[in-house]
């Protein structure tokens, strides 16, 4: 079995397109010219980076608020440790659940160990989804809370820079 690794050229490519692809007819050719590669090399490398999971998705990134998904509720649950993985996996299968993680409790202030995000057009829709979920999956027995976002102060994607060593730096 080989480890998935990235070389210096991959790093340069990752760095070059982190803010997006050029909006031109031959975007990969434009990148290739910048990096001294051929268009085909760029396409092949991007395909591989995608297959290996270094690139999670390749496409457009939407601003959910501007799309009318104005409400996002962070739903947090206190689930017994021996059940949390099963329930987390089950929650992840619902289409309106967009993120689902197990995280540590911070007692006494914070008893919750399962975090999921429900996005909806408005708070009523998000609450509706949560209610459906509780009933369908018999989750009412667990203590849960929903934290709506009231204000967004900052939203940006990941930033990468190249160190002198050419080691990938995440900033």
């Amino acid at each position, binding site marked *: 079995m080989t480890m998935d690794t990235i070389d210096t050229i991959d790093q340069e490519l990752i760095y070059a397109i982190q803010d997006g692809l050029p909006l031109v007819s031959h975007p990969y050719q434009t990148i290739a010219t910048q990096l001294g590669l051929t268009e085909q090399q760029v396409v092949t490398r991007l395909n591989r980076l995608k297959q290996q999971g270094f690139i999670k998705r390749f496409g457009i990134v939407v601003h959910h608020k501007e799309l009318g998904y104005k409400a996002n509720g962070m739903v947090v649950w206190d689930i017994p440790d021996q059940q949390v993985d099963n329930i987390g996996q089950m929650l992840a299968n619902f289409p309106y659940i967009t993120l689902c993680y197990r995280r540590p409790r911070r007692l006494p202030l914070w008893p919750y160990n399962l975090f999921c995000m429900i996005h909806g057009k408005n708070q009523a829709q998000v609450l509706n989804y949560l209610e459906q979920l509780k009933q369908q999956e018999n989750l009412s027995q667990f203590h849960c809370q929903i934290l709506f976002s009231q204000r967004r102060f900052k939203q*940006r994607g990941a930033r990468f820079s190249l160190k002198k060593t050419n080691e*990938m730096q995440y900033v």
Partner: protein
Amino acid sequence: MFDDLETKIINQLQESFPLCSQPFAKLAEQWQTDEQVIINKIQALLDQGILTRFGPLYNAEKLGGAFCLCAMQVKGQDWDTVVSIVNGFTEVAHNYQRQHRLNMWFVLATETPEAIAQIIQQIETQTQQKVYAFPKEQEYYVGLTLSLS
């Protein structure tokens, strides 16, 4: 509202964008339009702030970086000061106010796993407030694609 082409762009290009010589021309053929029309439309959606980016979404952890969700309990009169300190860190990727005693929720994104603790300490020192860290212990799902009906 969104027109037909905008809806196609938003619904179909979140998951994947063609990796071929002329990706816009390929889409234009599928959608029976012109490649320049698509390019202009994507540019317009970016300019309007409907799209934040057009390109790759990296797996930062796989590339060596680290993420950590953090929360703080901030009193009303301290809000503006704390927000400006926290957002002043380039490692803060997003920051939301939420309804709870822990009312400020932000995500740290750093170059190395060790840097998470360092940044938390700096934020605590500068704000004189405790930062609660909620590192991911298990991920059940990741991905956010939204659709227009």
